[in-house]
């Protein structure tokens, strides 16, 4: 039940009950952060994106139908927020200043992954999102389809095209790896 919007909880959250909102969205915060980090490659930007997405979710509670799966609903909002962030002015500054800088220390695999990260950044948003959801968050194709609101076949195709575009970097990883 924790992942599903129950009518009573939605009503309570709409009335300003913070606990009810926490019960609805709280369990999805951690995967939301991983999604945002996978998309933005920056811890602070990811936290900001999750916070903003939570706010948008709160504002959109009126549109939420009881029984809606919370996880895909909220992750879709996070994905949209990441898209906005990537288009935003601050992120461009951030990206320039942190280009190629691993966020989690300088372990060799991470340092070597700089080219691959850069290549992932250059993917189209839809491909990048499908790739991150499937390979980084380990979600099934059906779950990715629910979040991206696209048919499973389209999701498969996006992931395939993304992998093809990343192939040079993936193969280079193989040489070093």
């Amino acid at each position: 039940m924790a992942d599903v919007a129950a009518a009573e909880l939605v009503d309570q959250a709409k009335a300003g009950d913070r606990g009810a909102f926490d019960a609805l969205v709280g369990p999805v915060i951690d995967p939301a952060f991983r999604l945002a980090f996978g998309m933005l490659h920056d811890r602070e930007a990811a936290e900001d994106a999750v916070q903003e997405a939570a706010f948008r979710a709160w504002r959109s509670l009126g549109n939420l139908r009881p029984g809606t799966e919370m996880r895909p609903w909220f992750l879709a909002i996070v994905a949209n927020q990441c898209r906005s962030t990537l288009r935003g002015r601050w992120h461009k500054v951030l990206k320039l200043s942190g280009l190629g800088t691993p966020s989690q220390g300088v372990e060799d695999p991470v340092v070597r992954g700089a080219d691959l990260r850069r290549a992932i950044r250059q993917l189209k948003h839809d491909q990048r999102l499908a790739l991150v959801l499937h390979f980084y968050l380990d979600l099934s194709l059906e779950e990715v389809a629910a979040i991206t609101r696209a048919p499973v076949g389209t999701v498969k195709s996006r992931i395939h095209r993304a992998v093809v575009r990343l192939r040079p970097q993936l193969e280079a990883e193989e040489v070093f790896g």
Partner: protein
Amino acid sequence: MTTPDDEQARRKIRGALGVAEPEPGLRSRVITSMPIDLGFGGSRRQWAAGGVAIVPALAVVASLVVARHGGTSPQSASELKVVGTLNMTTQVGFRCTLPVVGYLTQARISFPDGGVAVDRTLDPAQVKPFAFTYAGGRWLPVPPPWVSPDGRAYAYTTTTSGVPGKQATSAVFVHDVATGKARELWSGDNSGQVLGWGPGGVYFNRQGSSQPGPIGSELWVVDPANPAGAHRVGPNPPQSQASDPAVQPTYKTFVRIAGGAAWAVTFGKPAAPSPTYVAAPGTIDRMDLRDGSVSTWYTAPDGVSVSMVGADAQGHPVLFLNAFPKGMGPSAASSGTVSTPYLPPPPEVLLLTGPNQTHTIASGSDSAFRPSLVLTDSHGMWFSSPGSLWLYRNGELTKVADVPAELFPTPTPPPGAAGKGNLAPGSPAPGFPVGVTLSLAGACT
């Protein structure tokens, strides 16, 4: 079905992106940051007023604002009303609420939307503290540096300096926010002024009189847990001699505690009023709070006055450099006592990162950026300029929003007080940006 190729791609992509475990407190922070208590409500209809329309504020403020008196108690949800929005010029990309004061209006601005929720309007008939801080859900009648790091107390000084027939004395108090009770920590001769909190407790300036030579203030510290141990810090006041024979001994005073140091500014004192007076170079000195060692970090060029208005998250001073024309001291330039209309250039804003090492935040070329206040938080450095808010973040200064004047109404001076008080803004020089300069009352959280 997962293929070996998929598995290999998954492994490499995860390796390249690294581990991303959220901080344990993220969920709590996200949930508690929802502006549920700000009365924005969950309905889209109510929010629309904040997102699009600028409500004619005078009427709305009059009808919606709940005026409170003597209030340091936390605000309840029902008392806050959104009266309009700033005109956002940049999408900030984060969520927080910034407490501000504009004239007599205490308000909180929510970002990224710029919604302005008014806490209360102060009574112009009552004495208004010169600064406020919003901390722990309360408005406190002191500037942010006087509030303890945990927000549970604030320090202040009282003095008899300037009282006719009284010898100058001063006392340092600490006020417990929860109980509302103040406790005297220290008292002594001469005037004093709280600077802020640091590793040793409450640091305060005390007008020095014990030493001959250059005048200046002494830095003292008192630990609220051990008030009896109050003592002077370091071999101060730092000694300095005027290099310009036209200038009398300099006056050095501490202005801020930041980054484990006390920061002092030197002012030149003219030998006598003179139309050719040129101020002595202003300097910024750093006194290490651990060993009391003093070093000069910055000396302003001729014709420029320097002031320290804040510090970044690492404690590096933020400096405003104001140029003034030859033949006019900085005080004359700012007070408008010259006969011809004078439009001062915008200040140059520097970050002082080391001795003689500066980083330019603003070059002074943007006539719209005339900041007078700065506040640092986790998002960057906020600057308040007439009619606008700015943010320095990731090495870039950007105007975040224009502040519609109607959201912070200019108070009407009481009868008979016209032209005497400073409640309403004076007439700026032609070309000077107009609008309210918001006081920044705390971190954007």
